C-alpha cells in the first residue's frame, strides 16, 4: 500500500468515465490502454429495482507488488518515499511480464511506444501538490485522494473495507468453475 489513498465513493458514482478520459488525456495515451477503469457491476434486482454498481479500479500500489517482482529489467519500481509503483519507460523493453504478473490486470500496453504503462497516481502532479487527473476531474466528486490521516473516519472505514475485499478476500478465494464455457477465441492477427 502506498502512503496515499485513493478512495472511490461508489454510491455517488454515475459511471460517466470522466476519470478514465482525463487519465488518458493527461498521459497522452493512444487507443487501447486504460490505466484506471470504472467497471460496471450488475444490474442486479434490489428491492424490485435494477441496480448497478460502479467500481473504480486504479492500481492498488501493493505493499509487495507482483509487477515489480516480475519485471526483469528493473523498469517497474516502487518509490521508496511514498510507495507509488510506476514504470520507468527508459528501462521497459515491453516483455509484458508485469501485465501477466499483476493479479488485478492493472498494467496496460501502449502500442505506440511498445512499452507497459500504468497508474502512478500521476506522480508528477502529486509531486507538484496536485491531485491525480482522475480525481481532479471527477464530475460528482466521488473520488478522493490524500494521506490516510486526512481521511474522515467514515471514509477511512469504507476504504479499509474496500481494500480488504481486494487484498484479502480475493486472494483467498477458492477455485470455482469457470463462469462460462471457454469461448471460442476471436481470431487475432497480431499479438498486440
Amino acid at each position, binding site marked *: 500500500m502506498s502512503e496515499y489513498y485513493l478512495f472511490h465513493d*461508489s454510491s455517488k458514482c454515475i459511471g460517466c468515465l470522466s476519470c478514465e478520459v482525463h487519465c488518458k488525456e493527461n498521459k497522452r495515451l493512444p487507443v487501447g490502454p486504460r490505466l484506471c477503469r470504472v*467497471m460496471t457491476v450488475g444490474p442486479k434486482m434490489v428491492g424490485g429495482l435494477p441496480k448497478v454498481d460502479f467500481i473504480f479500479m486504479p492500481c492498488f500500489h501493493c505493499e509487495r507488488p507482483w509487477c515489480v517482482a516480475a519485471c526483469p529489467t528493473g523498469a517497474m519500481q516502487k518509490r521508496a518515499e511514498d510507495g507509488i509503483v510506476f514504470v520507468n519507460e527508459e528501462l521497459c523493453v515491453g*516483455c509484458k511480464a508485469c501485465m*501477466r504478473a499483476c493479479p*488485478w*490486470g492493472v498494467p496496460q500496453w501502449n502500442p505506440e511506444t511498445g512499452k507497459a504503462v500504468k497508474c502512478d497516481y500521476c506522480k508528477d502532479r502529486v509531486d507538484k501538490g496536485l491531485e491525480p487527473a482522475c480525481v481532479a476531474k471527477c464530475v460528482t466528486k466521488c473520488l478522493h485522494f490524500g494521506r490516510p490521516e486526512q481521511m474522515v473516519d467514515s471514509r477511512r472505514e469504507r476504504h479499509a473495507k*474496500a481494500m480488504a475485499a*481486494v487484498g484479502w478476500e480475493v*486472494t483467498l*478465494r477458492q477455485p470455482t468453475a469457470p463462469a462460462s464455457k471457454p469461448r471460442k477465441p476471436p481470431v487475432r492477427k497480431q499479438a498486440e
Partner: protein
Amino acid sequence: MAQESTCPVREIRQEVASALAQESIKEPRARMRAEKLLVLLEDIAQGRAGSEHLADLKAVARSLTERQDAHGADLGQRILSLLESQGEIFQSHILTRNCASGACDMLAPAPCQMACPSGIDVPSYVALIGQGRYQEAVNLIRQDNPFPWVCGLVCTHPCEFVCVRGQVDSPVAIKELKAFAAEKALSEGRYLNPPKEPATGHMVCVVGAGPAGLTAAYFLALKGHKVTVIEALPMAGGMMMVGIPRFRLPREVIDREVAFIEELGVEFRFNTRLGVEVTLQSLRKEGFEAFFIAVGAHASHRLAVPGEDLPQVLDAVRFLRDVAMGARKRPGERVLVVGGGNVAIDAARTLVRLGCREVTLLYRRSRSEMPANVEEVRQAEEEGVRLVFLTIPVEVMGEKGRVVGLRCLRARLSEPDARGRRRPVPIEGSDHIMAADAVVTAIGQRVLTEGLEHLDLRWSSWDTIVADTITAGAGREGIFAGGDVVLGPATVVEAIGAGKRAAEGIDRFLKGLPQPTMPAVPVRRARLEPWEMAASLKMDLKRCEMPLLGPERRRITFQQVELGLGEEQARREAHRCLRCDICKRCGRCVVVCRDRMEIDALKLGYVGQPGESPTDFRMTSERCILCGACAANCPTGAMQMEDRGEERLLILGGTILQRERLERCQGCGDYLGPSRYLDFVRKRTSGLAQAFAGRLLCEKCARRATAESKSGMSVPQG
C-alpha cells in the same frame, strides 16, 4: 553493427518530437503546426511521402515562424534553412525511399543494393524470384539496368561480396538468380519493355554501342528522347560482344537484350567512327543536341620488354576481338598468357578452345592477389590452363623472326605498402626460359583517343576524359561522357551504372532542369513480404551449385559453360536471402534479449561485429520464452511476434525462430501466452501470495473478478 551516421531528416524529426514531448512549444497554434511537421517528417523518414510533402513541409515551417512562440519560430526557421542547404537529401528520401546513411530505420538500405554499381534493388527482385514472380523480377531489375541476362552471366557481382548471408555461410547467388529470371521471363514471352514517355522532340547521339552507351540509350529513349547510337564495329554490344568470349556470354543473349533497346526506337549506325565518318560538327548539324561519349578501352598496354614486336606476340584484347568476329586460328601449340585479370583468363580459356596444346598463364603475384574472378580461375584450371605465379617476363626470345620462348624472373612479394598492396620483387639470378610458340599479353587496357581529340575535352594523364561523377557532364555544353572512356577499363556493370547516371544528366540538360550536386542514391523499388520458413530450413539451405558443362566438352567447343539454374534450385536460393532491406542489422533485438531480459536466445552473429559470434537461427527455440521484447524494440518491424491459431510465433524476416502453443485463460478461454512465458513470470513472483488461488486469468477476467468482489455483485460477461 550498421553504421549510425547522421541524417538531417532523422535529426530534425527527433528535434521536433522532443520539442513536442517536452512541451517547449507553448502556443496552441504553434503546437498544432509542430505536430503537423512531425507527421510530414515521419512520412518522409518512413518512405510514405509523396511529391507534395516537401512543399507542405516548407509551408508549415514558414507559418510556424510567424507564430508568437519563440521556440516554435526558431524550429520553423531551422527547418527552412535545412531545406535550403540539404533539401536534396529530403528529396532523395522521398524519391528513393532509401536513406543512404541508414539513420532512418525504415529506409536503411540493403548492402547489396548499395554495392551494385547500377543500384538494382536486389532484395526485392530476389524475393520476387522466391515467390515465383519472375516477370516482375525482371521488370524490377530493368528499372535500373537494361541487361539482366547479360549481367546474370558475366557481372563481377560486387553485391555478393557484401552479401550478409556470406557472414552466415556463403553469399546469396545474386548474379545467377538474375540470369535465371531473365531467361525464364524471355522463354515465357514475358520479358517486355516498360511504357515510353511521350516524345520530347529532343535528339541525343550516343557514341559507342557498349554497355554504357546502350544503357544511356535505353533510359533516354524511355524518357521520350530520340536516340541514335553510332558504333565503330559492325554490331552492337561493344566489349560485351568482342571482349567477353562466347562460352561465358553467348551472342544471342546480347542480341536479345539489345533488341529490346532497339524496340524503343533507338537507331544504330554501325561502322561509323566519331572523328572519321562523322564529326561533332556534322552531328550537331543533323540536329543532335546532346552527346554521350561512351567508347570502350580497346587498346592494350604493352609489356615493354625486348622482342615484343615479334608477330606471335598478341595483345589479348585484339586476340579476343578477332575470335569473337569469327577468326578461329590458333596462334601456336604452346602459348603463354601474361596477366592475372579476367581478360587473361578469358584469353587462356579461348586458346584452349582453339586447340592449343599447352596454355600457361603467368602472373607476377600469387594466387590470392589475382584480380580475376575465383570461379573463372577454377574453371580455367579444370579446362587445363596451367597457372604459374610469381613470374615476371623480361624478354621475348625469338629465332628467325619467330617466338621460341619467354625469359622470365622469379619474384617474391614485398611487405604490404601503405595501401596494403604487395609488390612483386624480382629475385636476382632466377632467370629461366619458358618455351612457347606464342605470347598473349593481358596486362591492362586503355582508351584509343584517336578521333576524340577534336571534341576539345579535358583528358587525364591515363588517357581518360575528365567528367563529372554525378552528372557525367564533360565540361562542354551538351557533351557527356562515361564508361571506360572516363573510368578506364571498367566492368560491364560499372559501365551500365555510368550510362544510367549519364541518362539522368542528359535528360535534365535537355529539359533545362537543375543538376543534382549529390550522388544519386539507388531507389528502393518495393517492400515485399518475406518468405516464411522454419529456422532449420533457413540454416540448411546451402548456396546453389551452378551446373556446368563438362570440362571435356568445354575444351573443344565455345558452348556456354554455365548451364543455368533450375526453377526449384533458383527459388530455394532466393529463400536464403536475409532481407537486409527490412532488417537493418542494428542488433537491438540481440541486446534486449541478452542484456535486458537476460535470456540470450538470439544467436544472430551477422547483426553484430563481423566474426563476433556465429549465427544459428535454430538455437533461438532452445531458450526463447516468446516475451516479445525483441519485437517491441525492433525499429524496422523485421522482428515480429504474432499469434496464429493456437500458437505464438517469433519471426525474423520470414524465419520462424520460435513457436509455442498458447495457454488459455481459465475464466473466458482467451489465449494468454505460452507456458514457458507464464512459467517465467510465475517463477519471478513465486515469493508472493497467490491470487485467485492460482487460477490463470486473463487481464479482463482478473479485473472483473476484482470488481465483483469489491461490490459483492457479479459482472455480466461480454
